[in-house]
């Protein structure tokens, strides 16, 4: 078991390598064992058991952009919560008020999105 700061990353690296070998090793192994008889039906893109229609490129509805942006916003919020949690005890009320304002403004964003009915599923 490697130690220290970089040692822990060596452990992560070992796990990553084992994971990759497991996936691609299994795929390579099955490639050696399986018979290879490609037909048109087999090479079709799997689409829930239905023959695929059109190309892989379709224009997505613009409303999904709001979902992606909301994800970004709350991702950033979560990122700020980590350093906040570590200093919360030292700074006390000050840190609390700062975070309440921050989350309050972002809650305003969420409220706006709900009010404008962009979060409703069609």
């Amino acid at each position, binding site marked *: 078991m490697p130690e220290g700061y970089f040692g822990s*990353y060596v452990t992560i690296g070992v796990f990553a390598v084992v994971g990759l070998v497991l996936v691609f090793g299994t795929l390579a192994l099955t490639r050696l064992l399986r018979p290879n008889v490609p037909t048109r039906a087999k090479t079709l893109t799997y689409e829930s058991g239905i023959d695929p229609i059109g190309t892989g490129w379709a224009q997505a509805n613009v409303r*999904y952009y709001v979902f992606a942006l909301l994800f970004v916003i709350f991702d950033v919020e979560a990122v700020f919560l980590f350093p906040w949690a*570590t200093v919360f005890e030292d*700074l006390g009320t000050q840190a609390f008020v700062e975070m309440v304002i921050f989350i309050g403004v*972002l809650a305003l964003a969420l409220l706006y999105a709900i009010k404008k009915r962009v979060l409703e599923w069609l």
Partner: protein
Amino acid sequence: MADTYLQVIFWAFFALMAIAGIRVVTTRNVIHAALYLVATLLGAASMYVLLYAEFVAWVQVLVYVGAVVVLMLFGLMLTRAPIGSANFDNNQRLVGAVCAGLLFAVTSFIMVGAFEGQEIDFTGTEGTKVQSIGEAIFSIYVLPFEIVSVLLLAALVGAVVISRRDEGRVDS
């Protein structure tokens, strides 16, 4: 001895970043460009790890690789343009190259001027503590921190205004 390993790892990630960065601008498929950008950003995250800035590294992975690239891919999926072809190329390569070169020169100049001759002392360090980042944000840089929330609010309001259909019209 450990330093040699770190050097090898650094140059390996550097090569990865350089190749991926070049592929971002040379690939003909914009989706591929976005995926190469993921590789570049992951390389940047590995640089942060090598600089003992673990928290920044994982924020990089979480926000940039996780969220910003997703947003970019969404943006590409929403465009009607024939994605996957070379239609995004135009004859402004020279201007782009000059702008990028100037930007690189200016930022390098500022960086070198700001940190010239300084060396980071890594001996016995366990890296930048998240606490020090938290202290900086919540006691010194409070106003920029709060402005971030307003910026995010403005981004969402803008996206909603652009993407929303007219009131009363039912979208099929």
